[in-house]
């Protein structure tokens, strides 16, 4: 029973981060832009959501509003980088710290704003309970919502990156010289990619607040960038080959987020570890994921050597 509970809670948390992971994947892998605004846009999505839900706005609309605000933040980072020519990391940091203050303003100075009206989760569990005449486990509702949003995002992104503009964004990240020589406005594509990414990340923050906390917490974004990167790396290392398709890769990184949270959920069950060890566990998981290729290579190399030794040991016996 506890095993299932732990698993479910890991999966549902991981799915909240699916959109963030996709956003991070877009900037890091497609645009080749180390964007740190993430840490500010994630709680921004939550803050906007909290204010709107408490004002009586439909929680689904609140997610869209969070998306729009995230895109605006992404635009700022892009503007700093492409117009003011500030290096990517610094552009992201500037947006991030500006958002710390802005998020607090949105939350009227409060570090935590609890939802006073229904979130997406409450709304749906209410519907389903009425429909099925029984109480549905909230975790299942969360997981269902998370899966739906992740799938929707993957499908839309798949189509978007197949269009002319989408291809131009990928080319910009891959080889800006070539992109410009072929008539692509690389600055505009960078801004567009950052808007898309940060929009997804804010939507992710909105979902996280609605599904996990029923509140917006201003410190929610701390470490978000590491989690996003960890998810991307775990997904790629475990599931991806060189020539896997784009849709497959996006699914893989989303699974990376889920796996990361499942590991984390079980790690926190270990007796001598407690919640304050979270960051340390994160560091260990990411380090392990990053060194997986090296470990794989080491094992393959050992095998090859052993085979080689056997072959020549046999050869030696022949000559003797």
């Amino acid at each position, binding site marked *: 029973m506890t095993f299932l509970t732990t698993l479910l809670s890991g999966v549902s948390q991981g799915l909240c981060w699916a959109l963030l992971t996709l956003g991070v994947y877009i900037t890091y892998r497609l645009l080749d832009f180390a964007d740190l605004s993430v840490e500010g846009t994630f709680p921004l999505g939550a803050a906007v959501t909290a204010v709107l839900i408490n004002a009586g706005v439909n929680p689904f609309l609140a997610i869209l509003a969070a998306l729009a605000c995230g895109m605006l933040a992404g635009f700022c980072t892009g503007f700093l980088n492409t117009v003011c020519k500030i290096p990517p990391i610094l552009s992201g940091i500037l947006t991030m710290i500006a958002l710390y203050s802005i998020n607090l303003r949105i939350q009227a100075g409060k570090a935590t704003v609890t939802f006073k009206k229904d979130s997406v989760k409450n709304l749906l569990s209410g519907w389903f309970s009425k429909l099925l005449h029984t109480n549905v486990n909230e975790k299942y509702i969360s997981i269902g919502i998370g899966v739906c949003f992740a799938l929707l995002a993957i499908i839309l992104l798949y189509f*978007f990156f*197949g*269009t*002319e*503009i*989408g*291809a*131009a964004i*990928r*080319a910009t990240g*891959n*080889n800006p*010289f*070539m*992109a*410009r*020589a*072929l*008539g*692509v*406005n*690389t600055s505009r594509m960078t801004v567009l990619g950052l808007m898309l990414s940060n929009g997804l990340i804010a939507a992710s923050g909105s979902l996280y607040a609605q599904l996990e906390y029923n509140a917006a917490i201003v410190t929610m974004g701390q470490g978000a960038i590491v989690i996003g990167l960890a998810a991307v790396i775990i997904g790629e290392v475990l599931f991806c080959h*060189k*020539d896997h398709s784009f849709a497959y890769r996006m699914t893989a990184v989303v699974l990376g987020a889920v796996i990361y949270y499942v590991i984390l959920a079980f790690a926190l069950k270990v007796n001598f570890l407690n919640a304050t060890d979270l960051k340390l566990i994160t560091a260990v998981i990411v380090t392990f994921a990053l060194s997986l290729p090296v470990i794989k290579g080491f094992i393959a190399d050992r095998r090859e050597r052993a085979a080689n030794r056997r072959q020549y040991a046999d050869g030696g016996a022949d000559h003797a």
Partner: protein
Amino acid sequence: MLEMTGIRKTFNIGTVNEKQVLKGVDLHIYPGDFITVIGGNGAGKSTLLNIIAGVHKSDGGRLVLDGQDVTYLPEQKRARYLGRVFQDPMMGTAANMSIAENLAMAFRRTRTRGLRWSSGAAEAAHYRQALERLDLGLENRMTTKVGLLSGGQRQALTLLMATLQKPKLLLLDEHTAALDPKTAAKVLALTEEIIDENGLTALMVTHNMRDAIKLGNRLIMMHDGNIIYDVAGEEKRALQVEDLLKKFETAAGEALSNDRMLLTQ
């Protein structure tokens, strides 16, 4: 076709590294010209091409392309009119995208990009046909990532991409310099074929003086930020490598006559 007047370029103005690279270049390119450009290392050949392409902004002078003043037009807007192949085979293609995707990018060089699907079946047939003429078997590897191709294959592909939509001016900057002699000869032959067939106007930088004489209808020699020799037609056809060497020596002085690259014959 292209009129350059008084183009000047100085890098790192106001620092100890200040270097005047172009010292007022005037060049008039006529429609159908295939010009080969020679000159020692650092003469300013690449800078000249980069100014035409809009990679660098000139410090002074005027650039008129086909009647349109493009002096201040940004690089990506000029790209509509220009085809470019670089010295570095990695520069002209996107390694993580497939051959078809790269061609689709090139196919849209002259258009505004929108939310249309970036490559359809009809286009694929067109690309296959175009690849067939390269005779490298790439038509059967359209979904292969370009990063897996050899330098020569990538350069041939870049050439194809640069001319997929007919450019007003084709800029080739030592595009065979990084290739082995056999591949270089093949890519060069292909270049000549494509230029001939489509009646392109082209500017080709090379360090190989035989190629510079053999190819094209006009030859210019650059030295120290100036065009010091401009020859076309009969006179160019009659040129010998020795003539070029002599020209270069009188211009550059004995000290520079052992320029390693220029002496490639």
